[in-house]
């Protein structure tokens, strides 16, 4: 009996259950529409980010980065109830009596529900591609948006998703969702240099991809006070992924410990 097969099955069903949530689609598309309407046109036509005459690669990276400042919020919010739902519906007792291990179920839940939650976001990025094509008439923007999505957006999403799956193991879901939204604005939007308030934004741990877009894709001004090297961008990417794995590992150990002490 291979746990990898069980993992694929859990992934598929977690994906199916999450993707069917209409509220997820409404929230993601709503946020995307809001972004496109309020931000992007301004970015392209203004001198913001120094992009008026920027090459298409930088322009796309800047746009993807900009959308990434808001779009992950629905992701964090809609993933938060996945683990407590198993307790609430009492399926966890039943599942524990089966050969699929807790580790397999956690990883399957994480991957399946995260992937499903990313889909509406990705659809939003398709809207973004349409918008870009309309503005730039440059077909190169299509593969660039996809590549930048993987490079800038995905590491931060995986990072956020790990916390959103894990933290509700010890936190009340609405409280976590509230704290997460607060964290997102504090850790990505709040500039410590301008406000004097300490923040994770403009650091290597910014999940919105500040360091990655500046260091690896050459978006020259994303509010950072210093220039970022390629290696610092890469380090940010790897750190976000590494922390996501660590959080899932801690979750597994915590739930195993809880099970053993029952």
């Amino acid at each position, binding site marked *: 009996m291979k746990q990898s097969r069980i993992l694929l099955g859990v992934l598929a069903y977690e994906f199916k259950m999450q993707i069917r949530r209409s509220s997820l689609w409404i929230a993601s598309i709503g946020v995307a529409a809001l972004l496109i309407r309020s931000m992007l046109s301004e970015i392209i036509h203004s001198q913001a980010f120094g992009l008026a005459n920027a090459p298409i690669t930088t322009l796309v990276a800047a746009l993807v980065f900009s959308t990434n400042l808001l779009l992950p919020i629905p992701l964090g919010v809609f993933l938060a109830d996945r683990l407590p739902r198993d307790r609430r519906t009492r399926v966890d007792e039943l599942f524990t009596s*089966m050969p699929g291990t807790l580790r397999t179920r956690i990883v399957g839940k994480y991957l399946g529900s995260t992937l499903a939650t990313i889909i509406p976001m990705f659809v939003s990025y398709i809207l973004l591609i349409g918008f870009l094509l309309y503005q730039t008439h440059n077909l190169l923007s299509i593969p660039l948006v996809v590549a930048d999505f993987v490079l800038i957006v995905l590491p931060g999403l995986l990072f956020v998703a790990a916390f959103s799956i894990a933290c509700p193991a010890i936190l009340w879901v609405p409280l976590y969702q509230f704290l997460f939204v607060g964290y997102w604005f504090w850790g990505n939007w709040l500039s410590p240099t301008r406000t004097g308030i300490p923040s994770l934004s403009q650091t290597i741990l910014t999940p919105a991809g500040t360091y990655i877009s500046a260091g690896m894709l050459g978006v020259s001004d994303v509010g950072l006070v210093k220039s970022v090297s390629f290696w610092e961008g890469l380090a940010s990417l790897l750190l976000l992924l590494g922390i996501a794995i660590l959080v899932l590992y801690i979750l597994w150990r915590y739930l195993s410990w809880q099970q053993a*002490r*029952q």
Partner: protein
Amino acid sequence: MRIEISRLNKIYHGGIHALNDADLTIPGGMFGLLGPNGAGKTTLMRILAGILRPTSGDLYVGEYDGNTEKGRMAIKRVLGYLPQELGVYPDLSAREFLDYIGILKGMDDRKSRQRRVSELLEVVSLTNAAHRKLKTYSGGMKRRVGIAQALLNDPKLLIVDEPTAGLDPEERIHFRNLLSELAGDRTVLLSTHIVEDVAQTSRNLAIMNNGYIIFQGTIADLTREARGKVWMVTTNGTKPQGDFTVVSTMHMGTSVQYRLVGELTSPNGAISTEPSLEDSYVWLMREKRTPVTAA
């Protein structure tokens, strides 16, 4: 599949003793586990299903040692478990839910898994409702989904915890018959506080109270122990006085007939009668506070 339990203890946080030195041998076939609420039955079931770890003691299911991780995993592979409160994902249909359970049970082959799901939906008479979301199901329908999920992997050991609670009489009978049929070539452990369910299905049983196994043997052994302790008394309405338990009261027009369990000090007019399993259970719960084993 034979289950051997010896000196099994479970102490929950806060020092609550749910199981006290439980010794139990469960042979193949249908086995009833009776006891009042809070007796420790569910704790024992959960330990057998690998959900809880015992505080101390030994547990073997066939050749598998339930105290090791490897043994627990081996037991889970041959186990079908229906918990007291079945959890389901309300937004999945019965077919999807059963397919998911099949995956978690390690049924790799998609086609054979789906075939098995269809078979079991037929067995529990849910084929026509198989595509409906589980949140639209009644309690009885959910119990049927529960038994279907427990049977998916054709388990050698089937543990069912209070399976008939909340079912209407017809469904209960259907369920009991189904369990009896299943017991033909496997071990079925039926935990319940409904005496009738055990009386109608099991030859062997154990009775638990306050974390102790206070009886194990056959139904015949138990009723033999209660012989001479069950009485029928008919009065004009005056309730008999004494140290006994009234099992039933039946109004017969001008008189009232009482069925009593206990020692009658002056059995004038009382007729000794053959104990049923329920009478024997009541007598045991009254009289026995220490474990006994049928000879």
